[in-house]
């Protein structure tokens, strides 16, 4: 609990700093300075430039904000879906519960990487980079809910034998009226599920991007920048190539820290 506050402040500080960097006058994650390819850090490019002469600091800041926003949204969707499915399975009768958990198992068994590749190749080619980013996170959310739903189901099942539930039933409450009281009681389970999913989605997007299947150019993404690390000669040319990885690791640690502390 001691670390929670510093972690939150650090994360908030990063968000504010990234927002300031992206909104600075003249800052552009698209502009190619073709005379400054893989330039070292300077006053005009504090973290140097990438292989196309684009400002690395602005791109990292934009990728951080984009990834965080997408992961938070996907996590919220996942948690909401998990809460709905898990609660329905726990309180909707034995056969419905069994059926929903089978669906969860089927989703968990899907080769999601191939599924994502198929979805990516089936998208209209003119899908804008922003839309492709939104679809990427949407697909991640669509595939990410079953594990959380299973956890919620187990939590909700325990609630059915709790003292307050017996009192509620004894008081004559049934069906939707009971659910109204169940959801707040599941919050201690849903909040960690929500927080744990955020770094998982950040990582999933980075992996997809590193395979060239995530957010489209010229929109910056963690994965797109990790793709540069595939090239060891470039690593030797400028150490600043490692900057996005270091920041990604820091962000993931902070997000995991928030989840653990919660």
């Amino acid at each position: 609990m001691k670390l929670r506050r510093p972690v939150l402040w650090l994360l908030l500080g990063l968000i504010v700093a990234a927002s300031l960097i992206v909104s600075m006058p003249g800052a552009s994650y698209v502009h190619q300075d073709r005379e400054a390819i893989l330039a070292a850090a300077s006053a005009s490019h504090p973290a140097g430039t990438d292989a196309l002469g684009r400002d690395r600091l602005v791109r990292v800041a934009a990728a951080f904000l984009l990834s965080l926003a997408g992961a938070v949204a996907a996590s919220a969707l996942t948690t909401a879906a998990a809460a709905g499915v898990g609660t329905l399975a726990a309180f909707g009768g034995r056969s419905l519960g069994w059926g929903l958990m089978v669906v969860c198992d089927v989703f968990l068994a899907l080769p999601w990487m191939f599924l994502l590749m198929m979805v990516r190749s089936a998208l209209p080619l003119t899908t804008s980079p922003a839309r492709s980013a939104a679809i990427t996170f949407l697909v991640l959310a669509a595939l990410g809910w079953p594990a959380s739903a299973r956890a919620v189901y187990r939590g909700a099942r325990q609630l059915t034998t709790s003292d307050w539930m017996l009192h509620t039933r004894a008081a004559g409450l049934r069906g939707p009226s009971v659910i109204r009281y169940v959801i707040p009681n599941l919050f201690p389970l849903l909040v960690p599920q929500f927080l744990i999913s955020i770094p998982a989605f950040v990582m999933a997007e980075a992996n997809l991007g590193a395979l060239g299947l995530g957010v489209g150019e010229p929109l910056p993404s963690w994965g797109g920048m990790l793709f540069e690390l595939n090239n060891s000669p470039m690593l030797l040319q400028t150490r600043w190539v490692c900057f996005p990885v270091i920041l990604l690791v820091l962000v993931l640690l902070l997000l995991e820290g928030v989840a653990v502390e919660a």
Partner: protein
Amino acid sequence: MHLSRRILVCLAALSQSVPLTTCAAQAAPRLPAELVWTIGYDPKTFDPAKVDDEESETVRYLTAGVLLRFNRLTQKVEPELAQSWSLSPDGKKITFLLRPGLVFSDGSSLTARDVAWSLRRVLSPATAAPVAEEFVSPAGVTVVTPNQRTVVLHLPQRVIAIGKVFDEIAIEPAGRPSEGRVTSGPFVVAEYRRSLYVHLRRNPHYAGRDAAGHSLPWAAGIRLDIVESMEQQVRLLLRGDYDLIDSIPPDYFELLRRRAPAMVRDLGPSLNTEQLWFNQSPGSPLPAWEKAWFQNRAFRVAVSQAIHRSDLARIAYLGHATPAYSFISPANALWYDRSLSAPHTDVAAAQAGLAAAGFRLQGSVLFDAAGHPVKFSILTNSGNAARQKMATLIQQDLAALGMQVTVVTLDFPALIERLMHTQDYEACLLGLENVDPEPNAMMNIWLSSSPNHQWSPSEKTPATPWEAEIDRLMNQQAASATDGERKQDIDRVQQIVADQQPFIYLVYPNALVAFSPRLQGVQPAVLTPRLTWNVDQLRMQGAQ
């Protein structure tokens, strides 16, 4: 404490596995006067008649004795096992006179009977030799041997550049195919260990002699380690364990250049091209207005003029590529048209051309005459960093014209599905690897009826007068008797392509090689194999 011990055990296992990986590539000790380099994967066959992949081709090149050799440096066909050869005026009869006293590596004599047997084996449908297709009608070819040193082939029809075909046909002992273990070339296959190496040893009966009359080859043997990683190849070349890298990517070339500048050589443009094209197929599922843009010559020319090819070469290839304007590279000395007139970078001219064609710029967005904003996607394959960089650079170049471009990378199967089957794409950026300088080898791209006529595959009749003209010229050159007449036709095709821009050529990636300064006799050539085409004359300094 228990955990620490576990970690230590893991680290120990890891530290053992690193040298093991290195050893895997160097399982055989390096013998004196032996040359060592790498191939990327296991050869699929050692039967020289069945070669259909690059690494099997490498082994065949190093081991096979052939009647004629295509000199990679001069780009001319030269006699090898044949002392001389002649082609009849109608191109249907080829006569070879063999060198006297030829012997296979096992000491048996090499006669016209062995040559006829090897040729018949290649031509037989039962062998399914890929090279047989180059005779156009292999079933109609007959081989006769008037005497021990003469072989005559009768062809049912003239075949363009027939001499080069014999560079790919190994002469083996009659009735004793040996998968490279008995050859008349400089080396023979001595040992093969799957996923590790192919070991070749010197053929003591090889007929080659150097200018001073010494027996060739100089090297006692060759070890071809099977190594896919360029990183490992570069490291071991620097350490002196490998002698050469026949083709090296620009980023690793730069890395080597900084560490050992004497090891690398940029040979200038290769025969390969990188190009962008628009989908002009009438049957594609694209909206009618997009098809109209792509079928509009002014639109294609404007795109070509807006692209800064020198930036593509400098940034995507680190300066190791050459701006391209034709499907024939300047490295192709015989067929490149030096007087070609092609649209060069001129953004103002591109804007004026689009305005004249009815397009108008509103703010930063270009609209066509019917009011549709000009936006399209450029498709390329994922995993190719240079192509992805080029597509992103072109994206910014075309933004100057008001075109909104989306760059899409797809894995190769998904890409091919769109290109060859669904036709559901707008523009595509890909490359073409040319190993043959002969323009006839590109017939399948230029004939409008071909499924590989990529901007509009398998046309029943040519869709435009200029495509009909290309068909006519390509067929005409294939029937021409002299190279002079053929050159005129090929030059005209180059000019039509430059005028119409069905393919917008971007760059010729340069031929980049690396070799040990101790390796003697190297004469790098743009055509592959670039460093080992004269393998019988290569040797390490100081080796006996």
